[in-house]
């Protein structure tokens, strides 16, 4: 199996779709000559030209809205919003328009658009360039929300997102672009709404997204050394949510930790905790633990930034609390 970086995997999904389908095109700020601010679309201008690799002015609301308009007319645009923080500028079009057009039209309209964006802390850009805002969009009926954590997943899920007939907000994590992983020779679509069990275990289930999947896998190894067997599950799609897989895992282990980089308060993990407590209440042997950023904007100084965002230690401590309370 070939190996791709997360960045290359995103590009491969985009380029392959564009090769086979004239309706697919990409638009965004600095995605042409520069290849995007994360280098994801590097080389695509040369292959596809400036009609289909469209550099846009700094106009997030208009570029998101234009993608929506083209989608309504049968194209399959993929809009890149340079930083997740700037999704707040595109939000009107994504939240009030894309999410609701099919509904408001009584089923007449189809909006097959993807909004790709990226975020994540750990490099000290300060408060306006590294937020994790996925929960905002999970809250909106009509949107699908994907957050992939490996090269294989990001490629297969982006593919499915492009060919999904609904608006999809597709989150990538900045610190994952360089990670490498094996991918199938040919792109295999990964169904939207299907979780992935990264590691099987008996005692505790950790449900994690984005960078925290990797932190949780590290924590799981450490816990193993301390005699605690941990299962790590990545929902991959936040909306729709694969409740079945998550609940089944917790029914097996009887303990759950939810982990993400976004602030804990009103985070995606709150929803997961609710689903689990309701569907697996009688199976739970400990309160569900939540791991996330402390309730603060992202500070600039590295010592403060590291303090705010969660790491594998925090996941490990949460795992241990679930078993400690059980007297293990």
């Amino acid at each position, binding site marked *: 199996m070939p190996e791709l970086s997360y960045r290359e995997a995103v590009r491969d999904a985009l380029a392959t779709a564009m090769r086979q389908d004239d309706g697919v095109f990409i638009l965004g*700020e*600095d995605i*042409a*000559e*520069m*290849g995007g*601010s994360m280098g994801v679309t590097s080389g695509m201008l040369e292959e596809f030209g400036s009609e289909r690799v469209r*550099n*846009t*002015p*700094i*106009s*997030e*609301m*208009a570029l998101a809205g234009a993608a929506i308009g083209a989608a309504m007319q049968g194209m399959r645009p993929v809009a890149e919003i340079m930083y997740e*923080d*700037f999704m707040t*500028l595109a939000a009107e079009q994504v939240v009030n328009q894309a999410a609701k057009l099919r509904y408001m039209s009584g089923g007449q309209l189809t909006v097959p658009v993807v909004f790709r964006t990226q975020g994540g802390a750990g*490099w*000290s*850009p*300060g*408060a*306006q*360039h590294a937020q994790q805002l996925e929960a905002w969009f999970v809250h909106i009926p009509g949107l699908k929300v994907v957050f992939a954590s490996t090269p294989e997943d990001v490629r297969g899920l982006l593919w499915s997102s492009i060919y999904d007939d609904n608006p999809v907000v597709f989150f990538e994590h900045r610190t994952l672009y360089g990670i490498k992983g094996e991918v199938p020779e040919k792109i295999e679509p990964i169904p939207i709404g299907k979780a992935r069990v990264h590691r099987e275990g008996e005692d505790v289930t950790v449900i994690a997204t984005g960078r925290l999947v990797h932190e949780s896998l590290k924590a799981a190894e450490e816990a193993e050394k301390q005699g605690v067997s941990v299962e790590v599950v990545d929902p991959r799609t936040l909306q729709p949510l694969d409740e079945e897989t998550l609940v089944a895992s917790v029914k097996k282990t009887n303990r759950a930790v939810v982990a993400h980089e976004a602030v804990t308060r009103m985070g995606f993990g709150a929803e997961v905790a609710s689903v689990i407590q309701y569907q697996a209440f009688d199976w739970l042997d400990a309160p569900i633990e939540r791991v996330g950023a*402390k*309730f*603060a*904007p992202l*500070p*600039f*100084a*590295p*010592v*403060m*930034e*590291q*303090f*705010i965002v969660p790491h594998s230690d925090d996941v490990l401590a949460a795992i241990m609390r679930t078993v400690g309370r059980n007297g293990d």
Partner: protein
Amino acid sequence: MAKVETKTSLAKGDLRDVLREMLLIRRFEEKVEERFRAGELPGFLHVAIGQEACAVGVCRALEDGDIIASTHRAHGHTLAKGTHPNELMAELYGKAEGCSHGYGGSMHLYDVERGNMGANAVIGGGLPHVTGAALAFKMRGEPRVALAFFGDGATNIGTFHEALNLAQLWKVPAVFVLEDNHWAESTPESQHSPIRDLSDRAKAFGMKALKADGQDVEAVYKTTRQALDYARSGKGPVFVHLDCVRLHGHYIGDPQVYRDKDEARKLAETRDPITLLREKLAVSDEEFDELDAEVTEIVEASVDFAKNGTDPAPEDALKNIYA
């Protein structure tokens, strides 16, 4: 740095001081590039090398009590508005002594006491604040002006159009300074705007628009002065269009694959604002070297100051969230 009296042009003695200040900003930013490359500075940084005349010419024209809102390319504006190089460098090192006490970083420089309402990492983010600040001055009858810096790329975002329209509608004492370096990251102006004269955008709101060569610090000063006088007199906001050059990459480390290598080289040879002023004032090599040594020492001292600064405590991250 001493402030000039209310007058429409700069005297020769003032111009030497202007040269010194521009050179200080240049050396400061070169040092920032060097320290970033050495791995000492965290985060994401943009220098304004080539745009020193805009920062200095504009800020010199301001009165005490006037305020500015800056951009992601903010070091020059911050120094020109009076923040000490030590405090700026300390901020870039993430120290408690920094002008934002380590909370902000390069794209979030604040110095409220000196009338700097902040850099901004969101394009166009500060423009409505300037309209609102000017509104506050007007409502309270204060003879103050609020001034915004922004780039050509920023004229494409909604807040630009909404903020200028509102400012003109309410006739507030605001000045909107466009630093037109003809690039928005990797995107040349011809690719981001369908018109060739961006001041037409201000005219569309019925706003008074002035123009100056942004590489000529005297012209920048004079034009800004004119704009400030007009705004201060209650006639309404003014748009100031400065034609300038970005000599380095968009951010530190930008390989500029999108840009003809000769372009920046030619601009450096013909349009460097420091060289232009130096020639105009006929500053000898000796004199220039002296100035250079003097500002270099200040810059070196700022690095020492920053490195000897205090790291914030990790838990400080939970402070300052609410008033």
